[in-house]
């Protein structure tokens, strides 16, 4: 079934990428197949589980429900863009210290959702954390340590902001 291809310019983690893509190519497959950035995972392909969550122009979005052509001209941020060259960012570090991941398949989505939450609500209540993460499913952790990790990350980021 021959398909027309459409040129897109998408910036991923600050790196501009120009490709010609089929109109039906999903953003998650653009990342995974075209760019070989496999940190973003597909858990359900229906926008329910949140494993594929990325940031589009600073807002979390389901990359399994977004066509690559819809992201034309946008800034995408993925899990690969969170950490510094070595080591972990404060949210990743908190997830590590609080054992907030087991198999790790859902984790990139949770990291993106946590970043969005903490950028908007730097000092969230437990209820606000749970509500913000309710769109991401984890089958391993029971969310207990994820919530604790987000609380710890919020405290650390607040401390850092205060210190500066």
């Amino acid at each position, binding site marked *: *079934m*021959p398909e027309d291809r459409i040129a897109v310019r998408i910036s991923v983690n600050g790196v501009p990428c120009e490709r010609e893509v*089929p109109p*039906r*190519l999903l953003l998650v*497959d653009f990342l*995974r197949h075209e760019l*070989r*950035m*496999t*940190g*973003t*995972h*597909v*858990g*359900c*392909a*229906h926008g*329910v*589980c949140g*494993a594929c969550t990325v940031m589009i122009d600073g807002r979390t979005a389901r990359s399994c429900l977004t066509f690559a052509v819809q992201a034309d001209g946008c800034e995408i941020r*993925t*899990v*690969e863009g*969170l*950490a510094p060259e070595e080591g*972990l960012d404060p949210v*990743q570090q908190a*997830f*590590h*210290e609080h*054992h907030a*991941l*087991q*198999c*790790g*398949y*859902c*984790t*990139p989505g949770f*990291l993106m959702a946590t970043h969005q939450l903490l950028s908007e609500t730097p000092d969230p209540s*437990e209820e606000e*954390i*749970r*509500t913000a*993460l*309710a*769109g*991401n*499913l*984890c*089958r*391993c*952790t*029971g*969310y*207990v*340590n*994820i*919530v604790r990790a987000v609380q710890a990350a919020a405290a650390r980021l607040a401390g850092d902001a205060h210190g500066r």
Partner: protein
Amino acid sequence: MGGDAAAFRHIGRRVPRREDRRLLRGEAQFFDDVPKPPGTLYMGCVRSTAAHADILRVDGTAATALPGVHAIFTGRDLAGAIKAMAADHGKKGFKSTTRDVMPADRVRYVGDTVAVVLAEDPYLLEDALDLVEVDYAELPAVIGLDEALAEGAPRLHPEIDDNVPFVTAACTEGFEQAFAAADLVVADTFTSTRMAGVSMEPRGCMAVWDRGLGALTLWSSTQVPHLLRSALSELLGLPESRLRVIAPDVGGGFGPKAHVYPEEIVAAAVARRTGRPIKWVGDRQDDFVTTTHARDYRLRLEMALSADGTILAVRNRLDVNIGAYVCFPFGANAETGGGAIYLPGAYRFAHYDYVARSVMTNKAPTGVYRGVAAPIAHMAAEGLLDRAAARLGLDPVELRRRNLLRPDEYPHVNAAGIRSDSGSHVECLRLALEDIGYEAFRRQQPEDRLRDGLLHGIGIVCITEHTGQGAARYRARGLHRVPGFEGVVVRIEPDGQVIAATSQATQGQGHLTVFAQVIAENLGVEPEDVTVMEGDTAVAPFGSGTFASRGAVLAGGAAQRASTALADKIRRIAAHQLEAAPADIELVGGRARVVGVPDMGISLREVAAIAHSMESRTLPPGDEYGLEAKAFYDPPGVVLANAVHAARVAVDPQTGRVQVLRYAVAHDCGRVINPMLVAGQVHGGIAQGLGQALMEGVVYDETGQLLTTQLLDYLLPTACDVPDITIRHVETPSADTLLGIKGAGEGGVIGSVPAIAAAVNDALAPYGAFVSRLPLSPETVLALIDGGRRP
């Protein structure tokens, strides 16, 4: 913590995980992330849309006419290349059935694989799958237990004259007299909806055939790489020496991925046939339709008690709807046998009578899933205790306390014949009651349970978890294809770095950390200095794989054995150089040194260089080159972990919604290697049990069509459903296992299903209603309220 915890440097500590960094940075490699070789074709499966039918015609003409679509293979095309699965063949007490990996003539459930299509691109593959035409001649389908058991019911398999491939039964001597002596008999029938395991990563695999070597490598999201390799060998007729299975990072398992699946076998056969690398990526719908389901039970339980609440005897009649095929490699009894023998747990009773049957229907095959039969068996037993407490006018906790096994009653052989060396039920009960605030809650709880328009209830249950099963147990249970043991090889490379490989495969349990802790303990290094590898049959020793809460016990034991053997060799080499006795050498801080003379020592790097003949000094006479030790561990039987779970719920009598407000658990998995990771296992298990208790359920219609094929239909708990959880670790080391370890993978789910049900029983006390059916969806709860006595 155990009194001797101070004797350990690494075991028992909250060591952060070795595996996290890659996962957090997006650098992990799940099977779909493994770079695919040039020429890879994507495989898609044409699934049966009929629950029971003869295949009349499969037409792939339109599909294969699409440019980029390479081929279609039907069951007939591959008939000579793949043997049928026969998990129970030759097993005493079983009626063996076979499963065609890809049926050529007849389909037996919605999801059977009728054909596979190969295409260059996954999008194109979807187009092609839509164009495959299949004609069926439908046959009568049996969906429910009663239909399948009815006289003259349609038969699923020609080999057996009924739909019951397995029955297990036992009765203690004197049962009838004991039962007849009861002052009170409580009874009910409990049903548990089918469940799906729902690992966040759906199943998938990639098969690469090496024509020159005649060898095959299969990457698969499996929990059992060695068992999968053996199955590939058996079903494809290839020697195991030319088969390699690699489980890379695996995104959750929970049991369903511990089976061997048709797609793995077909992908391998097609790779061999075409010479092209073949990749199959299951999507969520495929996963719901074809990955083994679990827990489709109906359990009729009767409990006889004396007037003081002493349990005298229990009668258990269990039927399990196992679906269209027996799971491979476990067999028809995987869940059914468990439902019989897991039931006697924390309580003392001498008389038990059970009959448990596996029943085949035109639904997806069921298989092992976290907790196997124990959550529903314990829910039924605990549910009857709640009923008995109400009848006797006793507090439910007091009734349980009267029947709990005390520490001085161990070792104990229960009424199902299961021996257990230790248990700490009384202590766990004390701690869980304290943490949930039981006394205060009861004092403040209104008679009508109502506060702010909600019915508040509390549930306390005492459970056991069968862990660390070895070869003898698997033979006794008729699970002959499970080797039962595990193996570990530990090696120090010429540069002094420690590397180990285990026969297990991790899906997030933290194996790469806990086994490093055990090895580091014995070699006198830090856990971060030990690299542990798993999941690759070319690297790892043979073993069973990861399921049934066996990892810490068996691979932990094998790691203990291998690393102590290696430590002995290091001591001999060091002693030879330091002119001391090996017994006087201690391994500390990466050095082998003379006890009491810390300056007299040599580094592991030097020992490694000597062992590999890479410097002037030589090995002691009689020692082999290299610095490596391999060990297997097979514990004598089964080791029972125990726990007390305490849940507080609020039930909305208007909407039927159940909310879990507080949760506390005190558990005992013997010696704890890493309390942080054990807590993680408990948390996750509790959340899965909460899902089973309140919302999850696989639903088929009466024609065998699966209605729950997406996460929009099959609900999982979210962060808003699972409360914070308080955990206490009680450590009663097992006398039966190395290091005293008991398993911890399943206790969470085993405890939370009955605990939440018990809390709902308590909340509904004014209505005299008791839970007998899961999930406790709003409709089920409202029906319980409406069916009960209005206060």
